[in-house]
């Protein structure tokens, strides 16, 4: 067990190492040098004066935000002697399961590739490049023949894998009964119960103002809304990430949301970021990847058919095609249980010098992947900013929804949390659904994997994602899923088949997220 001191110094060392050499670092140096010309900076008290200058000019705040961002993203190191796999995933059996899942996906991708006789990557001829460049803003008009492509996997395939996860060290010979877990997930991970969730999500409490409840037409805005907007504007003026993260726990006003989210994720769309995006764009133009067709297919099948997101089709291509080629995404594999798939240059199978990550960002899209991007199109219209916001959301949150890990925000824990909440607080419903062959997780899994995108009305979805950012955790997805079941419990008790249960829960577009969460956490008798 590492003592607090040691742990802290390790963290500091890591943050310093990551920020050193970053553009923020060089900007700070430049600012410090510029400050030497200022009259208030004197040679005798150089160090303090420069520090004061950086504070008053807002640069210290930028540094603070960057440090805060690092702390949020990277988990604290467990032990100086721990091998790097432990930062990815401490439990060996989870690592193994993730590894075999990855092998399966890659095999599926490779066989599609061989079947269709399409290379994984190919340089585009000059004429094609020109055409694509002209059509960049309306790629949705393209109608390539995608009938032979199929998504590499769908959420339900992934659920099957999770259902078969077992901890080899855990003997659970007993028959399933009320004393142990009746659900589909059978791994002994620790999940929170309602009292703990109440503490964690205390800002959702009944006596605290919320957007999504206290800004409805019936409530005069003087009670909560006006003041909340004022505070939000102040937070933006201060440019403080930590304050913003605290603020959005009560919901973001529509007009301020885009800026607040960017502040929390520390995205500022600097010239070098725009340049980076343009670089990615030129990569898309020059090379054609097999995953591009998968992306096209996914967008056409999901977002284009959505009543509200179809308008943003073109933006989705612009983001996702660039995303596949972004090697900076590979950094997140340091703390993800996943490992990027490797591919070999033709003819050099197994030769390490000729290994490349495929796709370049290491992420193979699955059916519904584009729905992670679609809601952001409501907030960000400039392609490079939209791109960066999505990338950051992915490497902070979404990657956990399709990789096998023991992390409390990982999909396995979310599933277990959902099932436990349901079994503990709605045992009759759970048992009934199980008896008729409608295990609740079979229905709610797809909601959680997509972070409810495409299932909730857009304004409600954005209120939900406010809380994901505010609490830096995805647990709220499991709580909401349980709350939805609780809300429709009466109808669900009357169904007699899985299909009927699916029908009761098919349409979530009229649900109001915040009251549901509040009632489930704070107004249900436990």
């Amino acid at each position, binding site marked *: 067990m590492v003592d607090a001191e040691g742990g802290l110094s390790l963290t500091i060392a890591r943050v310093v190492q990551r920020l050193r050499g970053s553009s923020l670092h060089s900007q700070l140096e430049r600012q410090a040098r510029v400050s030497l010309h200022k009259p208030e900076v004197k040679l005798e008290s150089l160090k303090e004066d420069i520090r004061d200058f950086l504070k008053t000019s807002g640069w210290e705040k930028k540094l603070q935000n960057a440090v805060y961002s690092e702390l949020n993203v990277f988990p604290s190191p467990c032990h100086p002697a721990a091998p790097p796999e432990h930062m990815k995933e401490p439990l060996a059996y989870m690592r193994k399961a993730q590894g075999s899942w990855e092998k399966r996906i890659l095999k599926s991708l490779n066989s599609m590739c061989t079947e269709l006789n399409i290379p994984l990557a190919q340089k585009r001829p000059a004429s094609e490049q020109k055409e694509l460049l002209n059509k960049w*803003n*309306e790629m*949705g*008009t393209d*109608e390539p023949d995608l009938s032979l492509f199929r998504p590499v996997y769908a959420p339900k395939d992934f659920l099957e894998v999770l259902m078969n996860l077992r901890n080899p060290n855990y003997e659970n010979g007993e028959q399933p009964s009320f004393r142990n877990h009746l659900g589909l997930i059978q791994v002994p991970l620790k999940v929170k119960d309602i009292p703990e969730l109440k503490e964690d999500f205390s800002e959702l409490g009944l006596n605290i103002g919320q957007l999504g409840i206290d800004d*409805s*037409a*019936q*409530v*005069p*805005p003087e009670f909560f809304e006006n003041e909340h907007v004022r505070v939000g504007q102040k937070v933006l003026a201060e440019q403080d990430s930590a304050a913003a993260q605290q603020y959005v726990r009560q919901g973001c*006003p*529509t*007009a301020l*949301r*885009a800026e607040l989210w960017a502040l929390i994720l520390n995205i500022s769309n600097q010239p070098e970021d725009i340049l980076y995006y343009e670089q990615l764009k030129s990569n898309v133009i020059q090379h054609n990847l097999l995953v591009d067709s998968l992306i096209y297919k996914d967008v056409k099948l999901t977002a*284009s*058919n959505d*009543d*509200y997101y*179809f*308008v*943003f*089709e*073109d*933006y989705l291509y612009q983001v996702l095609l660039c995303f596949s080629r972004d090697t900076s995404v590979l950094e997140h594999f340091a703390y993800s249980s996943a490992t990027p798939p490797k591919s070999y240059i033709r003819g050099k199978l197994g030769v390490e010098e000729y290994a490349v990550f495929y796709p370049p960002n290491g992420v193979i899209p699955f059916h519904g992947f584009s729905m992670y991007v679609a809601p952001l*199109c*409501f*907030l960000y*219209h400039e392609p490079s900013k939209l791109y960066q916001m999505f990338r950051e959301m992915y490497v902070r949150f979404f990657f956990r929804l399709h990789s096998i890990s023991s992390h409390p925000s990982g999909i396995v824990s979310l599933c277990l949390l959902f099932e436990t909440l349901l079994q503990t607080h709605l045992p009759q419903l759970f048992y009934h659904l199980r008896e008729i062959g409608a295990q609740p997780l079979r229905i709610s899994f797809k909601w959680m994997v997509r972070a409810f995108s495409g299932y909730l009305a*857009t*304004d409600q979805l954005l209120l939900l994602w406010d809380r994901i950012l505010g609490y830096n955790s995805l647990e709220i997805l499991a709580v909401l899923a349980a709350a939805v079941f609780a809300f429709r419990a009466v109808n669900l008790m009357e169904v007699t088949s899985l299909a009927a249960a699916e029908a009761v829960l098919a349409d979530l577009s009229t649900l109001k997220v915040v009251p549901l969460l509040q009632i489930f956490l704070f107004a249900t008798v436990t």
Partner: protein
Amino acid sequence: PWLARWQRSSGAGIPSRRDALRRDRSALPELPSCRRAAPGWERRTGEEPWDFHWCDVGWLHEHFDHASLPEHVRLCHFRNHYELTRKNYLVKNLKRFRKQLEREAGKLEATKCDFFPKTFEMPLEYHLFVEEFHKNPGTTWIMKPVGRSQGKGIFLFRKLKDIIEWGKVRTTLSPSGEWPTGIFDLFCLPGPDGLSTDDQKDETQVEVYVAQRYIENPYLIGGRKFDLRVYVLVTSYIPLKAWLYRGGFARFSKTRFTLNTIDDHYVHLTNVAVQKTAPDYDPEKGCKWMIQQLRQYLTAKHGAEAVEILFADMDNIFIKSLQSVQKVMISDKHCFELYGYDILIDQDLKPWLIEVNASPSLIASSQEDYELKCHLLKDTLHIVDMEGRLSGKEKRVGGFDLIWSDGPVSREGNLANAFVTGCHNDRKKQLKQLFRSLRAQQKAEC
């Protein structure tokens, strides 16, 4: 389903009236559950007596002048609604109203009427049009027939010769083998045998068009153009009483907007009817956003204030357009009318009036759309109030808000400064409260 009859249930406390409802075949073929919209009403056909007629404009023109209607009956159109809904009359009335406003209240006040793109009636104002056309070479104009709807017969042009070309396609060679060259001739409908000699010209019908300045910088979302459909209910013109419905929708064009494809109707015309025939139209997918969504999107992008100004400007359009026809409209107490306003927003967030429909389509393109239209009809019937339940002082009934009652309407609470299109529509709750308090009032009075 609309052929079925239904019986009124005996509701306690509601004064018993002869309740009969007649629905005209052609007006509502699309709305399958008339029953749902008006519970407790019975259909009537033929010559049976009736209280309420959802008629089409054809029936109205035929019968209105000759029928002597009992006091309590209601019809869903005004006798000369075309003053507002036919494009050439609307333009005439707006121009006249603007002049009047300028005389009475000054130039600044008159600019509040500048929500209608420059329009000329054809062929009557052809020469005025040509003058304006030459002042701004290179701009795009749109030609629309005044009498048709759903996008039919519309085309865009940039050169005068396009009109000539188009006209030639419609007409035929004269007996002497020449194409008609007079502008008037271009707008003539072909005679019964396809020829249009000089002798026949007097009897030939001329199809009236309007040429309108095309809005070249529409607001785009996802590269697509859209227009708004908003519903306004007028229960009387003298005095003017108008209600605005909180729901409505934005109709998106299926393809990305570009001025390069003037011939591509599907881009420029956003009427759902036109979109439905587009080659890649997917009937499963709606090309519509509810107005609430649009309002949210715009607020996130431009901030709450800019959006408030936009919706305030839209309110201005409704009121000014109704005021402009107030004096010419035959305001019969039997009549009410539900108008469908088509509004286009440009890139500066300025709303433009495209047209007003007297018979807005009630065909639903999706479940959400169906619910909107059902609720719209229900609330319309609540306001027409044949059962005599309302006190007449209400400022809100269901999803409708009173926006003009012989003068501007003040609103209380947190909607005092908000313009309600696209606001939260809690109509069920509102109706429940309204009718409960009305019943209580009635009981107190007995």
